């Protein structure tokens, strides 16, 4: 039998860039194919070609053995190909029914929308695949996991046979991830076929039938979870051996560097985002803050870096009260911050590398003499840090916007780690980075800890928290539910806390 989907020799050249280089790919009916590759390997370009957003320069697409041309997403949908993007395309103030119908509306006589018929169809789909989505709910009231299911319903509503899921687990809690994979199983049992794009090895091993690995625009190989293991996959993906399990010595905690007591912080809507939070971070240890995105971690980090003033409680840095200190005062006391959104907060993308490397030290000697910038030493600093932190950039004058995400993050790490620091606040330090860069950042964090730096690590990646932290605090709805020694807890237990379930 022909595979349901076959790509042959897909090539896509962007100006000066070969994003896809003769890629062959087959998807059989009723299977989950994992498309594994680092960020920038060409996965998303390939899927955008399949979905009609890009036109390939070369290559052919076959559906059920028949060659087809796809010029637009509507062509793709007509061929039964549907895609769930990493960022959902939903209108928050519309109901599920309205969102699902959007672009393919059911109409009654006289041009009126037939919501009832559409809702019935959604209920039917929801029941068939056990999605548990209420057609009358508003998107803004739904948790992210359910929003994702609405996106899947959108595809099923349009009779998609081939579903492409782009990094579907990036926004989910561990429980939601398991539920998603249950849904994916049920979909393939009903004869659908799924391509699922990811760079997370564990998910690939657990949930896929076959794995195709892409590196630098080419297919490196296709394997199955039975034949492969995580180390082998990582090596295929990156092109060299990767150390997945970080070796670290037991922590030797010293004095308390950061002390937070009864902290209360409001978010931008003036709602309480951090509610009565207390913790200590000691020199030489990593305190990991676990939690699903949006449970107050962002505001907590902003408060302990001076970006947001708390409305209650107290923050002390080596005993000194810094509750209302400015970011500059935090920096000058020896605190470093890797911000959650590196492009928004941590970097000036229209500045060259050299300027980004002195973004918060530009006024100090040797980078300034009086008020005059000392360019030779700014250049020298950049040359040195590029070498020392292995930042891949054509030159010190290259604009930050043209570096890869991993190298942008290295610029921040280089800038923050090259100062003598006593506290490091790292928020989502590896979000969106490839395996190689993640490995690099993790090693650097451990290194800092071993040098006697206190590290506050905030991450929504549970694996990252488990791997790096000496102690783990779980945040849920603005509160810290529990603080535990990392050795005494399992991932499943933390997962339950993250969902707000406190074991009796």
């Amino acid at each position, binding site marked *: 039998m022909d595979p349901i989907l076959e790509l042959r020799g897909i090539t896509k050249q962007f100006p000066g860039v070969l994003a896809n280089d003769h890629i062959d790919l087959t998807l059989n009916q009723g299977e989950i194919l994992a498309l594994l590759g680092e960020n920038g390997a060409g996965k998303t370009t390939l899927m955008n070609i399949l979905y009609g957003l890009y036109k390939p320069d070369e290559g052919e697409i076959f559906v059920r053995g028949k060659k087809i041309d796809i010029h637009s997403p509507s062509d793709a949908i007509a061929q039964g190909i549907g895609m769930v993007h990493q960022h959902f395309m939903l209108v928050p103030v519309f109901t599920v029914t309205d969102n699902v119908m959007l672009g393919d509306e059911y109409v009654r006589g006289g041009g009126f929308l037939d919501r009832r018929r559409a809702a019935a169809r959604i209920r039917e789909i929801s029941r068939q695949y056990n999605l548990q989505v209420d057609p009358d709910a508003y998107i803004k009231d739904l948790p992210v996991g359910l929003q994702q299911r609405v996106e899947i319903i959108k595809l099923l509503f349009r009779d998609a046979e081939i579903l492409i899921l782009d990094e579907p687990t990036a926004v989910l809690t561990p429980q939601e991830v398991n539920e998603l994979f249950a849904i994916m199983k049920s979909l393939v049992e009903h004869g659908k076929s799924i391509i699922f794009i990811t760079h997370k090895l564990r998910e690939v091993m657990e949930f896929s039938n076959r794995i195709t690995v892409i590196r630098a625009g080419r297919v490196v190989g296709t394997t199955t979870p039975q034949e492969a293991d995580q180390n082998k996959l990582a090596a295929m993906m990156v092109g060299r051996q990767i150390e997945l399990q970080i070796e670290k010595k037991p922590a030797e905690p010293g004095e308390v560097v950061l002390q937070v007591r009864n902290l209360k912080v409001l978010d931008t809507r003036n709602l309480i985002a951090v509610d009565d939070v207390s913790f200590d971070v000691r020199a030489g240890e990593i305190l990991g803050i676990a939690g699903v995105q949006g449970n107050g971690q962002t505001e907590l980090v902003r408060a302990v870096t001076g970006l947001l003033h708390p409305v209650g409680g107290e923050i002390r840095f080596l005993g000194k009260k810094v509750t209302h200190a400015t970011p500059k005062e935090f920096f000058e006391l020896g605190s470093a911050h890797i911000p959650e959104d590196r492009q928004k907060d941590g970097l000036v993308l229209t500045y060259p590398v050299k300027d980004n490397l002195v973004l918060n030290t530009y006024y100090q000697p040797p980078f300034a003499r009086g008020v005059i910038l000392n360019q030779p030493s700014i250049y020298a600093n950049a040359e040195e840090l590029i070498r020392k932190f292995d930042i891949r950039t*054509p030159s010190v004058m290259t604009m930050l916007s043209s570096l890869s995400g991993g190298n942008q993050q290295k610029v921040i790490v280089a800038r923050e780690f090259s100062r003598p620091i006593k506290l490091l606040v790292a928020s989502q330090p590896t979000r969106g980075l490839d395996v190689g860069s993640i490995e690099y950042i993790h090693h650097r964090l451990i290194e800092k800890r071993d040098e006697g730096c206190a590290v506050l690590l905030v991450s929504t990646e549970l694996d990252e928290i488990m791997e790096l932290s000496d102690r783990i605090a779980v945040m849920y709805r603005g509160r810290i539910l529990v603080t535990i020694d990392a050795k005494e807890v399992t991932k499943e237990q933390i997962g339950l806390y993250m969902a707000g379930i406190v074991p009796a």
Partner: protein
Amino acid sequence: MEKQNAKAKGRISQKPLVVFLDEVTRSPMMVNILAIVTGLFLGGVIAALTTENVYVALKSSLVEGLKIALQAAWNTYKALFLGAFGDPQRIVTALQSGDWSQINRALSPLSESLVQATPYIFAGLAVALGFRVGLFNIGAEGQIFVGALAAVWAGVFIKGLPPIIHAPLALLIGGLGGAIWGLIPGWLKAKTGAHEVINTIMMNYIAFRLSEYLLTGVLRDPAKTTPISAPIERSAWIPRLFPYPNRFHVGFFIALFMAFLVYLLLFKTTWGFELRTVGANPNAARYAGMNIVRSMVITMALSGGLAGLAGANEVLGVNRNLGVAFSSGYGFDSIALALLGNSHPLGVVLASLLFGFLRNGAIQMQLTAGIPIDIISIIQAMILAFIAAPAIIRTIYRLKTPKEPEIRLQISSAGGSS
């Protein structure tokens, strides 16, 4: 991201010439230059279209019509050129004769263009400085008025000072007047979050009416029937360098010096680094411990001060008094200049020279070729429309998209938190 890795590889294999052409066609300056070229070309088309003879000739034959049209466009630009730079032949003859007054006369179109460009430089710098810090100072016009008022006050009522002190003092007081006018919206933004676009526009109206009030009141020359100020003291004049009627004055060099100072401030000092960072990414500036609110207030004051200098320069160097008719439009043109000059001091100077030549040339053009001066406004407007919509220029000339994101004007909404 995926483009970068492959791009680096791809580049090496290309030939140097290809790489060079690639760089040139991607350069953001290219758009500005082509915008000027296109604007001038379309100006010629409009000059032809508005010439009646073209239609008369078209009735007889198409070729004849086109010929007349080309002739009309040629005449327009010839007159514009002669008006802006002077007649090359006449300049050569004058230089050969060695007669100073003849040289002075032959070169006076050129020097008059520079006189026109001078306030443009000051005001263009004012707006450009704001842009660099993410602030949209629409109030240059009002700041020019207040600068002129303050300078005239200093020039009329301070008496008995030697010129070496009086003139710089009057200029400085003019700058201070403008600075206060810029500081107010800056301070309002910092304290209340009020948007500077709204408040600078409102401050313009206050400045206009204030000048009318003062010119019909305390500043009015009692000897005159029209509301006009008394002539300023000779000692406060910015000196002219050539005999009458040549109006070229030292203010042009002061303007160039200010451009140099702004350049130093923005690109060579820690203050400038802070200001530019606030403009490029206020979030990152906050993260890096910079004081955004202070940067914005200071910038608005500096920007207002530069605009104030434009006004002071005009009254002290050119008019030597202030009348209600003192309406320059420099303040609004200066927004255009800053955009045309990519908010860079050197770019602003070049753009100001261009506008100075166009403005002065147009006056001559109107006199000799009978083409209405308004065509210059149309040309200026088209140049700006093309700069504001680079996609048009990129499509016409098949330019590639820039590698770096174009530095777009961003109106910051920070402030008001303290």
